[in-house]
């Protein structure tokens, strides 16, 4: 928590609105649609946060703060729910007034089967407009973190959507909302060329007070990181995200540019097959699966020299991780922040006592275009494991092949990065640790089939516990279990590295969202 607070505090002090100026920035991927409910992906949601707003939003410190709702409170009823009081006097970019009707419509739209965001509303039973400026959202069970989970649920004008035939998001057909937007946020969409360029201009009718001094903001997707760096250096763009980690140090030394570092919410970890009986790859293909043995998993944890990875491949930009979430997340357990130290001798001892004195061979799957330097990290892991006798056969592939491969259980060990959408520790427990159960939508990313009955019992308790300290106690127990069982080997928290011209002041948020209203150009 403290880390990014200092970063943003520093940038705040620099902010001083002096004259207005155009601004341009580049990112790796183009937001594929302007429809806030069609796709649940970071590039889209991050971009659209500048155009649309939700009932709540996250501040510079990631804390939930009022947006289109001015206040909210839990409803004491059978199941549970929250009452939101809406902000008055808000208008959409098209001039329409914002009312409870728009919230209900946006719920129906975002929770429809066509929407990608439907899972956010899994526990929601109904959304009721009590009056024009009060909305009740009813849930099946009490959900203490519900307001946190809807920060990216954006409100669209009901009338505008109906008039343009965009009542539902469209995936397999073009839709008016794919190329156009009508939100309430500080910026409005003025030009959209998919894959080429998207231009935003400040919305004069915004309810909030403008902190930025941008006249127009132009986004260009630049896929090749080297090209993006070149564009920043040559002044063709004012800001890029991300800066390749290896270029950060060099960029620091350049006149005219500045590197902004932070840590992301994403934890990079190694997963291991624990439900499989046999090894699937490598020299010992077909032999009994050693990863079912906790000592072997611990050996792996001790064999990987995380400080070395951070020192070289990550250039000192990242922090080691001990849990499945970063310290900035809700539910992080500071008491359990120690991670297994690098100790090859201990790793060999553990292997020996597990019955593998000479180690064994197996397969490691790795994406090569998903996480920062993912392939290099895997390679380094391979050479470190080799030094304790674990002979990993590396198969690195593009992410488009990677997920299908993991889903088919084609791995012995794999690399995974996890960023909790709710910024809460509950999220990875639900997705990565719960025993897989498709009906209950549990453990859907638990490819290694880790299973622990206590964890499965703890999860619903955590989900419904409203009292913070009780919740934290439950969480501490869960962390203790998965750490001692070495369910995963958390490696490090992925760094966030942005680059900007030095006349730009901005705020870097750990969810890697780039919020334009915090940008000033000198």
């Amino acid at each position, binding site marked *: 928590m403290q880390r990014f607070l200092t970063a943003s505090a520093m940038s705040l002090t620099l902010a001083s609105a002096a004259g207005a100026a155009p601004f341009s920035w580049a990112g790796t991927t183009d937001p594929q649609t302007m429809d806030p409910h069609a796709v649940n992906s970071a590039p889209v949601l991050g971009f659209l946060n500048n155009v649309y707003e939700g009932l709540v939003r996250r501040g510079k410190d990631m804390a939930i703060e009022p947006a289109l709702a001015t206040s909210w409170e839990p409803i004491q009823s059978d199941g549970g729910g929250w009452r939101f009081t809406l902000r008055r006097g808000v208008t959409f970019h098209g001039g329409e007034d914002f009312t409870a009707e728009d919230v209900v419509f946006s719920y129906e739209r975002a929770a429809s089967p066509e929407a990608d965001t439907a899972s956010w509303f899994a526990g929601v039973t109904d959304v009721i407009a009590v009056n024009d400026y009060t909305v009740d959202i009813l849930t099946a069970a009490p959900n203490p973190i519900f307001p946190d989970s809807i920060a990216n649920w954006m409100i669209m004008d009901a009338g505008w959507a109906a008039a343009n035939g965009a009542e539902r998001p469209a995936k397999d057909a073009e839709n008016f909302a*794919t190329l156009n937007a009508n939100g309430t946020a500080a910026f409005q969409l003025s030009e959209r060329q998919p894959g080429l360029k998207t231009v935003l201009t400040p919305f004069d009718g915004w309810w909030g007070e403008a902190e930025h001094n941008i006249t127009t903001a132009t986004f260009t997707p630049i896929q090749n990181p080297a090209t993006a760096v070149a*564009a920043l250096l040559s002044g063709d763009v004012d800001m890029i995200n991300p800066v390749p980690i290896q270029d950060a140090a060099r960029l620091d030394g350049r006149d005219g540019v500045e590197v902004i570092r932070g840590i992301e919410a994403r934890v990079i970890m190694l997963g291991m097959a624990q439900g499989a009986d046999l090894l699937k790859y490598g020299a010992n293909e077909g032999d009994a699966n050693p990863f079912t043995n906790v000592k072997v998993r611990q050996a792996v944890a001790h064999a990987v020299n995380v400080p070395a990875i951070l020192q070289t491949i990550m250039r000192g930009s990242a922090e080691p991780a001990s849990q499945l979430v970063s310290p900035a997340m809700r539910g992080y357990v500071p008491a359990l922040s120690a991670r297994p130290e690098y100790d090859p001798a201990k790793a060999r001892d553990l292997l020996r006592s597990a019955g593998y004195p000479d180690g064994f061979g197996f397969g490691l799957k790795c994406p090569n275009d998903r996480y920062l330097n993912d392939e290099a990290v895997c390679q380094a892991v391979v050479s470190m494991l080799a030094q304790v006798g674990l002979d990993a056969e590396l198969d690195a592939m593009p992410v488009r092949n990677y997920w299908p491969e993991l889903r088919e259980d084609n791995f012995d060990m794999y690399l995974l990065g996890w960023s909790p959408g709710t910024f809460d520790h509950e999220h990875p427990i639900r997705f990565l640790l719960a025993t897989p159960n498709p009906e209950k939508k549990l453990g859907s990313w638990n490819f290694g089939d880790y299973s622990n009955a206590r964890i499965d019992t703890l999860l619903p308790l955590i989900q419904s516990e409203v009292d913070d300290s009780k919740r934290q106690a439950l969480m501490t127990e869960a962390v203790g279990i998965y750490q001692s069982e070495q369910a995963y080997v958390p490696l490090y928290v992925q760094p966030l590295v942005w680059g900007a011209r030095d006349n730009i002041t901005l705020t870097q948020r750990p969810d890697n969202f780039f919020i334009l209203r915090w940008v000033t150009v000198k």
Partner: protein
Amino acid sequence: MLDLASPAPHDPRMISFILRRVFQSILVLLIVGLVAFSMFTFVGDPIDNMLGQERTDADIARLRAQLGLDQPFPVQYFRFLENAVQGNFGISYRQGRPVADILLERAPATLELAFVSGFLAIFFGIVLGVFTALRRGTVAANAVMTISLIGVSLPTFLIGILLIYVFSVELDLLPSFGRGDTVNLGWWSTGFLTWSGLKALILPSITLGLYQMTLIMRLVRTEMLEVLRQDYIRFARARGLRDRAIHFRHALKNTLVPVITVTGLQLGSIIAFAIITETVFQWPGVGLLFINAIQFVDIPVMAAYLMLISVMFVAINLIVDLLYFAIDPRLRT
């Protein structure tokens, strides 16, 4: 009986020849298309890109059926062809927009880049090829020959990156990416009409054209040397014609006959090679679109791109054939 065999003003031989070529090309392209389509199965799975982190297995199965991905690929291919014939290339999985629109938006960028680099390649290829042939053995010619080889001895992407490094980053003379400002003429967006658009063209077109230029230059040189040895050149000299007339009228025209075929085909591969150049320079053309489509397994876009490329090649082949008829009288009668 129709009098088709007698010589007509437009030789039916030419027409039937061209028709035959088009027919053959389309047939082979359809087969290649089928093979290419079968490749899509292996490129990856679009589903994960289309659904978010919180998707379930049921969501995956539903979307798969909705997109027809559960069908065997010949069925998918046939359906694609069926729609394509009606001008419908489907909806991009990623952008959710008609593929035809997307291609139309992107085509001008690639075509303008290909045009400029093709022009550079042909112009400098011919000029330097003629120069090295006429000055064969001189230091200057040998230098041109050797330096030109660097163009084919380094991968295109590396040349592009080095050019960016030198001219954009270090010297800050030219833009490092993109097309600069464009002007819309109807649906065609052109970078020719703005200063920044023209500046943006320089590095990518050099990167793209360098390889082709080297090939054309060497071809022109070889052919020119061959032609210069011909009897009709000796006879032209014996008649006292000026060197200029001999080199640039008699020899060059004969040199161009074989050069045209190869150059035509090379122009085709310029569009293909644009994939790499567009990636390096973030040039918003169809090549970049294709690479992105591969990354996101956007099958409709990939299929349409391959079709577009195919059609372009058939067209280029046809133009080459027609040029052949135009330049070589022996084919006309």
